[in-house]
């Protein structure tokens, strides 16, 4: 079934009785060419691009819970390509371009909304750093725009411009950045992959790998052994746990990040604002809730919930920059587990075990990467060579000293 405006109108007039499930619910086959572990955004996107771009159809996605129940459904939905370093910027710009064509590509309304993102500037040094970043972005074909205080006042008159500690001195805007309906990304990719023959197997947990003589032959699961020529792991915050089953230690720690949503309000926020100095970022969902977040909790965690000190810290950041937020009630908060890597950048690579591939270390910025992550991981799985925009995301960069450390924090995952 393809979606179209006509179909929506017809269903609206006939009581919505003609909709069918968007993907099948198959039992696992004994053997696949490629198995993807993890039915999050990245795993499902990988399956879609494997089938639609790289001609692979004997593919399965194995998910321990339900698709979209992990970070893809827990994040604050911001997409952007305002990175600076060589290994990163071309990759995130490739991702933003894929977002721009996503809905036509998968025939699914993911509510891609390029409402713009603006990073606030509070000091002369920060202005220099952001202008340098803007130049790096433009050199890589992305858009960037410096805003002076008057321009910001026109768009966001309610911000606290004269805060004693962090007065607003300007901003770096990326107009093509914005937000995307996160659940719809998982559902849209799932439907597109399924329609090309990919099996999406939910409620099936991978509990081990069958590795003989340095080669991976498949995975042990709660539904029994499933064989595969190649296995790709894309399990976000569970990377460490999963890869330890293959005997690997990773340059990764798992940490919890919280997200918050206020009660529904009239439209007040046209785009996304980030207040880096106090670590707070906010946008408004199409239902009216202010969606915001801040720092990670800061210590290893596999609990999908946060702790109160960070709630307080995030809300203080919000009050400092946007005092009117204090009038809104907080409706909901939750946590997601992120695989914080040692330099804050992802890893997409083969492992030393033949037939076993890894995609992870997304920290708290992996949602925007979903289309590109899927595309380049599919490339790696199908062709065994890295995609041209992902050549820097190798395991060995920690050995050779070629870290991609956007924040300059060194090997301390809780600071990235």
């Amino acid at each position, binding site marked *: 079934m393809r979606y179209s405006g006509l179909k929506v109108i017809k269903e609206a007039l006939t009581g919505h009785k003609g909709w069918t499930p968007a993907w099948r619910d198959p039992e696992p086959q004994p053997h696949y060419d490629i198995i993807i572990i993890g039915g999050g955004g990245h795993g499902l996107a990988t399956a879609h691009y494997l089938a639609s771009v790289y001609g692979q159809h004997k593919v399965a996605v194995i998910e321990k819970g339900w698709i979209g129940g992990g970070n893809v459904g827990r994040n604050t939905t911001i997409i952007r390509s305002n990175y600076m370093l060589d290994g990163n910027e071309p990759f995130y710009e490739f991702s933003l371009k894929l977002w721009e064509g996503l809905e036509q590509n998968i025939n699914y309304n993911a509510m891609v909304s390029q409402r713009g993102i603006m990073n606030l500037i509070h000091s002369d040094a920060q202005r220099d750093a952001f202008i340098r970043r803007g130049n790096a972005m433009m050199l890589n074909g992305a858009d960037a725009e410096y805003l002076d205080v008057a321009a910001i006042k026109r768009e966001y008159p309610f911000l606290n411009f004269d805060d004693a500690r962090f007065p607003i001195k300007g901003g770096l805007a990326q107009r093509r950045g914005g937000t995307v309906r996160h659940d719809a990304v998982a559902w849209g990719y799932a439907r597109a992959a399924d329609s090309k023959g990919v099996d999406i197997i939910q409620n099936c947990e991978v509990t081990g790998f069958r590795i003989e003589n340095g080669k991976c032959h498949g995975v042990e699961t709660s539904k029994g052994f499933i064989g595969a020529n190649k296995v790709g792991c894309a399990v976000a915050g569970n990377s460490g746990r999963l890869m330890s089953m293959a005997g690997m230690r990773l340059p990764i720690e798992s940490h919890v990040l919280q997200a918050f949503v206020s009660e529904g309000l009239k439209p007040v926020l046209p785009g996304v604002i980030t207040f880096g100095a106090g670590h707070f970022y906010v946008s408004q969902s199409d239902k009216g809730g202010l969606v915001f977040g801040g720092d990670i909790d800061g*210590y*290893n965690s596999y609990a999908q919930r946060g*702790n109160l000190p960070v709630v307080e810290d995030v809300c203080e950041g919000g009050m400092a920059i946007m005092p009117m937020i204090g009038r809104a009630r907080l409706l909901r908060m939750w946590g997601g587990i992120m695989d914080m890597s*040692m330099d804050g950048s992802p890893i997409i690579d083969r492992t030393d075990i033949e037939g076993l591939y890894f995609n992870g270390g997304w920290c708290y910025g992996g949602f925007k990467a979903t289309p590109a992550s899927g595309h380049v991981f599919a490339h790696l799985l199908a062709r065994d060579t890295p995609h041209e925009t992902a050549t820097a995301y190798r395991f060995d960069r920690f050995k050779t000293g070629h870290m991609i450390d956007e924040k300059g924090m060194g090997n301390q995952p*809780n600071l990235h």
Partner: protein
Amino acid sequence: MIINHPLLGPRDSAEFVYLGDAELIDRPDPETASPEDWYEYGYLRDNPAGLHRELWWHEGGDRSWLVVTRNTMTHEITSVEIARDVARKMGRSS
């Protein structure tokens, strides 16, 4: 989270700064360590889902270093030791 400091009693974890896995106490010997040893020490982690021994610094208090054993699934803390005592037991400090 409440950290039961061996000298000061129960303190709010917000007074502390987190460094990471307590294995960091066991730094390789610069005289004999290979690049591989430094790579493992600097970058690779067990990252367990369950009991985890980790380093916390009492920045907002007596500025001591502690080794806290905490369950990363439940945040339950089962033991708190002074890091210096742990290091001594490992022969790392006099």
